[in-house]
């Protein structure tokens, strides 16, 4: 080679508040053994204040390249580039080996981090070196999770004339989006966008919709997975149920409705909501008096107009299917607001979560969209009942559980926008109400979002910069204390209703599923993608793609886009008849020897 390729490697600090991180020392030991690597620095031993030390090291050791390895490698690029130029080198010879980009986040990913550093030393892109073999592919696809991501992905693949199995845990598809009243920033009705898609899924000949089902086990190899699916007993024969609702009407048991975020009551035999797909009733065995109390009730069976439709002896079933590709779109759960106890959620009845307000405000909600106080019914349940008193002062508190070292450190991305939307909807329904928003930073990040924020700001809603510290009951009202940073004052006022903009969290279910599928999750529980920037839908396991919020917080447009992207990956492999094997199965030696090969080929070309 014409010029020497002597290299120094700088290892960035990784902890970032986490303890389970890549073992930098081990990677350093490994890197020292790679030819051409002369010096390695750990961030802890090298303060990046004086470039002269770097200049001296470069000159003394006759270095021509510096590699920065770590999570935020790019942060230090300009510093090293300046030093290298000062020492007479070329700025383009500062290379990045980004652990985060290729999903090397935890201690167990240390081998991958070694491979990333080795590829950088050989001057080869990691994804070029880490290229697995291909295998034949079964054209059937499994989509796990029937929210908007799963619906979109299923429709895309089924539209390409391929068979899709859509597995959904609850009794209906639709997910969180079905619970929303409006979508930001256009204030379109969420149901108007979603329900036609849901109906499409229900009617599509290529989609085998499996609601009230869970993935029990996954076996096999990329392109040929054997999936066992647990079909939970619905106790209602879906093929004969006509959806008349008589059973539900007569059922004597009332329990909190999951679909209404538990602000209203449903019966033990129910459909989640009137537009549910499939529009068939389900009997909730845990609350059914007949099943729990040994045949003491049985009303639903008596009133059902279809003979043998309701069958209390129905058992769970296990079905087996074979698929080539799997799309994981398991979504999220909202932050448990009880954990942020300074806001009194669960203690004070009129402290709501945003999802609860979303249901309350919805025309199909328990009060037909009337915003009222939460009151106690005759049996003592705290629910919203039409005709109760109407609140006059409503506060929305942002960042509940998000951007908080005590809970989740990350920004949940959607809360600012949905809070603005909710404020608008409250103001629309109660024009005389005093609506206030308390925020830390206003993150209006998308197309038309900033304009949406400005519009809401001009609607007479008090948008106050300051994180609320405490909410306390004060008579019938709630006393809220916050700093108004821009107004340089303390706000200590009474509100009738306080809404907590709860953040998004990874599902525990999706973590269990990830384990089953052999894919990994980051420190916050979001599923890992193959490449943070360049390949946000594939994973390191062949044939498994991820879409929607299970990969990280995102809004509906982004979710839909990612679902379509995942579907295109699947269709690509089906059309080719071939599928990439798992990158995670490639050994370190595998990747490194391939990188060596590629680098010699490149040199020969030069």
């Amino acid at each position, binding site marked *: 080679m014409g010029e020497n390729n002597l290299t120094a490697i700088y290892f960035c600090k990784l902890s970032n508040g986490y303890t389970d991180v890549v073992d930098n020392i081990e990677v350093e030991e490994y890197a020292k053994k790679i030819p051409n690597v002369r010096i390695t620095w750990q961030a802890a031993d090298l303060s990046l204040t004086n470039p002269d030390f770097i200049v001296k090291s470069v000159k003394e050791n006759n270095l021509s390249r510096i590699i920065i390895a770590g999570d935020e490698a790019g942060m230090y690029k300009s510093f090293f580039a300046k030093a290298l130029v000062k020492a007479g080198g070329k700025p383009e010879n500062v290379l990045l080996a980004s652990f985060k980009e290729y999903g090397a986040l935890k201690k167990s990913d240390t081998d991958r981090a070694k491979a990333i550093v080795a590829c950088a030393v050989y001057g080869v892109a990691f994804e070029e070196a880490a290229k697995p073999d291909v295998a034949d592919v079964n054209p059937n696809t499994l989509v796990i999770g029937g929210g908007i991501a799963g619906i979109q992905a299923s429709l895309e693949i089924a539209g390409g004339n391929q068979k899709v199995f859509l597995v959904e845990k609850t009794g209906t598809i639709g997910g969180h989006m079905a619970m929303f009243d409006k979508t930001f920033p256009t204030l379109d009705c969420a149901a108007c966008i979603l329900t036609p898609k849901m109906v499409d899924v229900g009617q599509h000949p290529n989609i085998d919709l499996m609601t009230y089902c869970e993935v029990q086990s996954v076996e096999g190899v990329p392109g040929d997975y054997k999936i066992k699916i647990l079909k939970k007993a619905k106790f209602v024969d879906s093929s004969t149920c006509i959806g008349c609702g008589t059973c539900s009407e007569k059922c004597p048991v009332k329990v909190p409705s999951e679909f209404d975020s538990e602000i209203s009551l449903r019966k033990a035999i129910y459909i989640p909501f009137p537009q549910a797909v499939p529009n068939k009733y389900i009997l909730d065995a845990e609350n059914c008096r007949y099943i729990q109390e040994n045949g003491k009730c049985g009303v639903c069976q008596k009133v059902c107009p279809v003979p043998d439709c309701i069958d209390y002896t129905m058992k769970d079933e296990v079905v087996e299917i074979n698929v080539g590709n799997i799309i994981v779109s398991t979504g999220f759960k909202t932050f448990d607001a009880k954990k942020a106890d*300074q806001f009194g959620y669960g203690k004070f009845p009129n402290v709501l979560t945003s999802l609860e307000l979303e249901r309350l405000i919805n025309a199909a909600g328990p009060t037909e969209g009337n915003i009222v106080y939460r009151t106690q019914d005759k049996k003592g349940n705290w629910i919203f009942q039409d005709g109760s008193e109407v609140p006059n002062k409503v506060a929305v508190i942002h*960042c509940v559980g998000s*951007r*908080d*070292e*005590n809970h989740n450190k990350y920004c949940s991305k959607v809360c600012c926008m949905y809070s603005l939307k909710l404020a608008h909807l409250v103001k629309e329904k109660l024009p005389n109400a005093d609506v206030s928003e308390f925020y*830390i*930073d206003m993150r209006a990040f998308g197309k038309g979002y900033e304009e949406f924020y400005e519009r809401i700001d001009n609607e007479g809603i008090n948008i106050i*910069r*300051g*994180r*609320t*510290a*405490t909410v306390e009951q004060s008579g019938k009202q709630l006393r809220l*204390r*916050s*700093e*108004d*940073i821009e107004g*340089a*004052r*303390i*706000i200590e006022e009474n509100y009738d209703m306080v809404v907590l903009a709860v953040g998004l969290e990874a599902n525990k279910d999706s973590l269990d599923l990830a384990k089953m599928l052999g894919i990994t999750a980051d420190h916050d529980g979001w599923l890992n993608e193959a490449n943070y920037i360049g390949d946000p839908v594939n994973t390191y396991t062949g044939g498994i793609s991820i879409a929607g919020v299970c990969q990280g917080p995102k809004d509906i447009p982004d979710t839909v886009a990612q679902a379509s992207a995942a579907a295109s990956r699947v269709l690509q492999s089906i059309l080719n008849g071939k599928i990439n094997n798992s990158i995670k199965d490639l050994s370190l030696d595998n990747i490194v020897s391939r990188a060596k090969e590629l680098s010699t080929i490149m040199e020969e070309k030069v």
Partner: protein
Amino acid sequence: MSQRVNLDLKQDLIQFGVEDWNECFHCGNCTATCPLTNDGSLFPRKAIRQAQMGLKDSLSANVDPWLCYYCGDCTESCPRDANPGELMMSLRRYLTSVYDWTGLSKLFYTKHWFEIIAVFVLAIVVGLLFSVFNPNQIVYELNAQGGVQINKMFPIHYVHLGDIIMAIIVAFLLISNIFNMWYKTILKLKVKVPFIAYITSIFSLIFHFGTQAKFSKCDTKGKRYWGSHFLLMTGYTIMFILVVAFLPNFQTEKIHEWYHPQRILGYYATFGLLFGLIVMFIGRFRKSSEKFKFSHLSDWLFIIMLFLTTLTGILVHFFRIGGMVDATYWSYVIHLAILVPMICIEVPFSKWSHLAYRPFAIYFDALKKAALAKQYKSKLATAA
């Protein structure tokens, strides 16, 4: 007022204890969670802002850190783990050095060895003065009540004279520092304080000095700091007045009956001191609450020296009553060898000074607010 951004402020402040406050993203949680904040006093966030931006002049003029009693609520609920409570504590150290025109305070706070050496040197000088250079002999003859004749060994009028000289020097330093504080927070900024406010606000100065009513508001969420601190403060103040102003009446040859005011006050002060100090020792050792998690050398030194002074004081008292001559003599020497450096270093230059700065901060804060109210009124008048 325009001012320059001081790029070295961060490094300066780091020397006073806190590690880094750049974690703060200004959500305002700390200010809102604090039970003492109001529209005119938005701490700790405002002070964090000034520290982050390098506004040295604004920070020097800010009395807010003295209005904080460190209950730790802000640190507990801070979403960024920026530790605003400890920043306020460090700013109190910093402000002490800002008010101190001699520059010794900064040395004591930032150079730990300097403070320790100063304490030892003063202790040795005082110890030698009262032992080796004491012209009087140890008197073994007991008085009529069987007590040690301490005033024959250490002539009370000389001790009292030295006492008063020390008090004058220390008071001069402390009062000049308070004037400096007044200059920095009011005069330099040309705050137009209505003269009447200087008189009317004196009541709040005395009230808050005597009761620490604001501190009692910090006893939220099961915290109980006010009681033990009040005992300590009153015990200390009573003992201080007895020793400095009334030494001839306090250190009498005659041993009074136990119900004599001299002894009752002395016992109350001793109990208050011991109780308060033990609570603080336990807290700082266990690091059980945010308030006690971080202990600067000055925090330790203050309570250790106060504790040793109290302990040796108690020993002197009982040795004297018990007629143990040698023990009385030497415990008295040790007592003074700890007491004098404590007063000379802690009172004007270190942690003790908060006893003066806190009530004066409340006073100056009231003056500033009075000035603002007047300004607002005149604006309203011109607008009308």
